[in-house]
């Protein structure tokens, strides 16, 4: 039996079993997160490590007497064994509820409906994957990670909701090197196409050839800069650090406080929304609540909505929008503008073409100031012509400047930035992002 099918049988058996155990006044939400993944790490186009992981984690959220207990535990996929574990941890959850104080922000469980999305893919077999991945990169110094296999997220509750989202997918996240110069690429999807992968590598090799010139070292200062979608992806990741969270806003830790309070604004060229139509993440959250397909967060430079979980909504007596706890974007889209791909270098004129950024962090949250580094294929451009790769530079820049009056243009195309995170398990989701043309982007070191 295939992993996904076996997991579904076990999950449903455990859920039905636990729901039948509940006594009056108890409600239970159950989540499954599971994967059967292959991870192959490459260095210099050779295999450094390969790991296969089969894991299933069941999470219980028990509400009892206005108390809330959250418990997660590993299960096996074997129904008999999993029922035993589930009984043990339900007992522990009840014990927690008996010991803990009342939870004033508890959200009563409801039936949030039913959905089932399962995508079957075509992935490389163990026998063929090493040759398939390394052959097109022959002669290149390639480092990276191939991660693939079925993954599942699902939720049920004692009120009857039942949501299932699974797919068989892969991501080949790689870099190609020429000494210390490098370019970045990601080939991801659900059906492995050897020709498409070879084409992606070929494009990366062409980009790397542009790096075959002496590096230019720039002095700190303000430069006109084009952030390609890969760099926009890094910049936009900062929106996940509490910036768009209503709870963070109320508790003083959102970096967009001044935007929400209308003390500052972004450019009319900048709009950001949640768009589950991208199709990479489920619309339901871990409580089974189904978010709207699209939700405007920042429109034409003005804050329209924060992401607000039902728990936060209850805490602050406001309307929620079914955000995940933590209130971070799960399907972020930055809206396109009018700058055409063929005009990017011409409009940049003289300045920096930045393919990627690295290791961003808030350097001053109240002013939405971010520091970080340039990384990979970043070039000095003069009069619309690429002149030289640059030595990496540190920037320190406020979003109110670079996405405010200094934002000159947004590209008319967007690229998908798939979530390739693999902390504890492979992630779902991804972003849809354009490139950004910015003046006076500030570099400090």
């Amino acid at each position, binding site marked *: 039996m295939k992993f996904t099918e076996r997991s579904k049988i076990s999950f449903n058996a455990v859920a039905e079993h636990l729901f039948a155990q509940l006594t009056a006044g108890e409600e239970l939400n159950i989540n499954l997160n599971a994967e059967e993944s292959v991870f192959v790490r490459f260095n210099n186009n050779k295999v450094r490590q*390969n*790991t296969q992981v089969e894991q299933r984690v069941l999470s219980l959220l028990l509400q009892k007497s206005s108390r809330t207990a959250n418990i997660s535990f590993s299960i096996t996929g074997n129904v008999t064994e999993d029922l035993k574990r589930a009984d043990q941890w339900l007992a*522990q959850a009840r014990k927690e509820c008996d010991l803990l104080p009342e939870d004033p*922000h508890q959200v009563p469980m409801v039936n949030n409906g039913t959905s089932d999305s399962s995508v079957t893919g075509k992935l490389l077999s*163990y*026998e063929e994957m090493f040759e398939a991945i390394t052959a097109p990169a022959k002669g290149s110094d390639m480092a990276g990670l191939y991660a693939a296999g079925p993954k599942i997220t699902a939720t049920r509750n004692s009120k009857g909701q039942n949501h299932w989202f699974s797919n068989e997918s892969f991501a080949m996240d790689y*870099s190609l090197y020429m000494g210390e110069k490098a370019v970045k690429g990601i080939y991801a999807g659900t059906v492995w196409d050897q020709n498409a992968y070879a084409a992606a590598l070929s494009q990366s090799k062409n980009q790397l050839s542009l790096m075959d010139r002496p590096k230019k070292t720039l002095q700190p200062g303000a430069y006109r800069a084009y952030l390609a979608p890969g760099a926009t992806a890094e910049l936009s990741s900062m929106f996940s650090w509490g910036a768009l969270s209503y709870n963070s806003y109320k*508790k003083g830790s959102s970096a967009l406080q001044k935007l929400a309070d209308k003390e500052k604004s972004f450019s009319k060229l900048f709009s950001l929304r949640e768009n589950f139509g991208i199709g990479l993440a489920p619309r339901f959250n871990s409580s089974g609540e189904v978010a709207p397909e699209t939700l405007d967060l920042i429109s034409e430079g003005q804050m329209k909505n924060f992401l607000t979980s039902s728990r936060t909504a209850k805490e602050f007596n406001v309307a929620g929008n079914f955000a995940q706890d933590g209130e971070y974007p799960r399907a972020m889209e930055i809206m396109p503008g009018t700058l055409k791909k063929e005009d990017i270098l011409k409009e940049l004129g003289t300045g920096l073409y930045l393919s990627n950024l690295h290791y961003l962090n808030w350097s001053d949250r109240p002013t939405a100031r971010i520091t970080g580094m340039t990384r990979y294929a970043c070039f000095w451009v003069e009069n619309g012509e690429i002149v030289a790769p640059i030595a990496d530079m540190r920037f320190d820049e406020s979003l109110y400047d670079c996405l405010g009056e200094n934002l000159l243009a947004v590209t008319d195309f967007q690229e998908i930035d798939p979530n390739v995170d693999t*902390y504890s398990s492979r992630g779902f989701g991804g972003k849809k992002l354009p490139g950004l043309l910015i003046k006076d982007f500030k570099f400090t070191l």
Partner: protein
Amino acid sequence: MLDLHRCLNSLKGSVDWAQLRLVSEKTTWRTVRDEKPYLNDISFDHGLMVEVLVNGHFGYAGTSDLTEDGIKRAFSHATTMARSASAFKVHDFSLAQRPTAKGKYNSPVTRPIDSLSAKEISDIFIDSTRAMKISDKIVSRVASAMIIETEFFAISTSGSDVHQKFSIVSTDFNTTASDNGDIQMRSDNGGLARCHQVGAEIFDRASILERSKKIAEESLELLAADNCPSETLDLLIAPDQMTLQVHESIGHPLEYDRILGDERNYAGWSFVKPTDFGNLQYGSKLMNVTFDPTVPDAMASYAFDDAGMPATKEYLIKDGLLVRGLGSLESQARLSLPGVANSRSASWNRAPIDRMANINLEPGTSKLEDMISSVERGVFMLANKSWSIDDYRNKFQFGCEYAKLIENGKITKTLKNPNYRGTTVKFWNSLKAVSANRETFGSPFCGKGEPNQVIRVGHTTPYCLFSNMEVFGA
């Protein structure tokens, strides 16, 4: 209880070597915000990693299915993949990289964690956040703990038999104060920086309440403080910020897997080259740095790493000279350099890679008051708030929660929004005084590796004084 020896005996035969690594880890989060429960979360992670050596290549398969069928399936996956991958292997490994290890380790615990109930912890935290309630300007009051209980067994076909048991607590107490559009956060030495191998004795009510009140007072003090000046001057750094400085600008660049390029596609490379060992003057003569997984209560102490190498204290930098890096037996073989016992995995579902453990700055001879007296004009920074460094671990910029201005040898006033930036080797060569007293902090969340792994690290450091540093405010 799973009989690992019986499992191993049923699996061996078609590989050159095999190891079973069984990990059970219970993580409990207790968080109270504004005197109300915010998070009470228990996760119990339980699984087995099968590791095999086939044709000079190590292969791994981890499973949470601990039935007989599940373990056999994992062994089959590990073997099949290792055999296929061995034709593409980066290095020809042998059993020399998996010495036989036998022994036990237990975290030093005075009172077992389970001697304190959820209610008792919750009550202390409610009182903590109540103690923080000293002004309407304080908009957020948080008390939080992450409690980790880990049990680890490893047995191999070459006779290894290791049992390690860890009890770890990380705490965080913080307040956010807001007034006139300014927002200032103050915590208990930085977010979750107080982390140790310890038992329930860490939840000392009197100490927690005293610290909670001080944190709240200092967040208000910051609201009224001047901004950190932007100039080049002396910089005195407290151990709760030195922790981050050591971690980012010594620990990571000395990891052999970064130097070898394994990590290039994710966290990055290193400015350190193999030829730098024994030659590079990394810092001033006052700089002595050790890898020390033997510090009793530090976050990352253990008896053996995941490859079976005994954990011992080793000097990485001696009198400012780089002498040794952070490399496991595999990396040592690839680089032909000596290393340390740092082959560590985040859990049963990840293969071990080169990690930090406890990376410590050895004490100097100065007294803190003398260090302050020696400064004509400088800034004294405490507790990390912001961190960023390049993928070669060279150009960094760090921010702190709290600072004091030093003028003519005396502390004169509090400063807010303190930041500094620099480059690694130049920074460490500007070290001009090191205190005799040290403090131990750490982090439960050092991220690295493909697939990604979070590991726990500890850092024991003194107060350090640096000359000619670029500092700036908001």
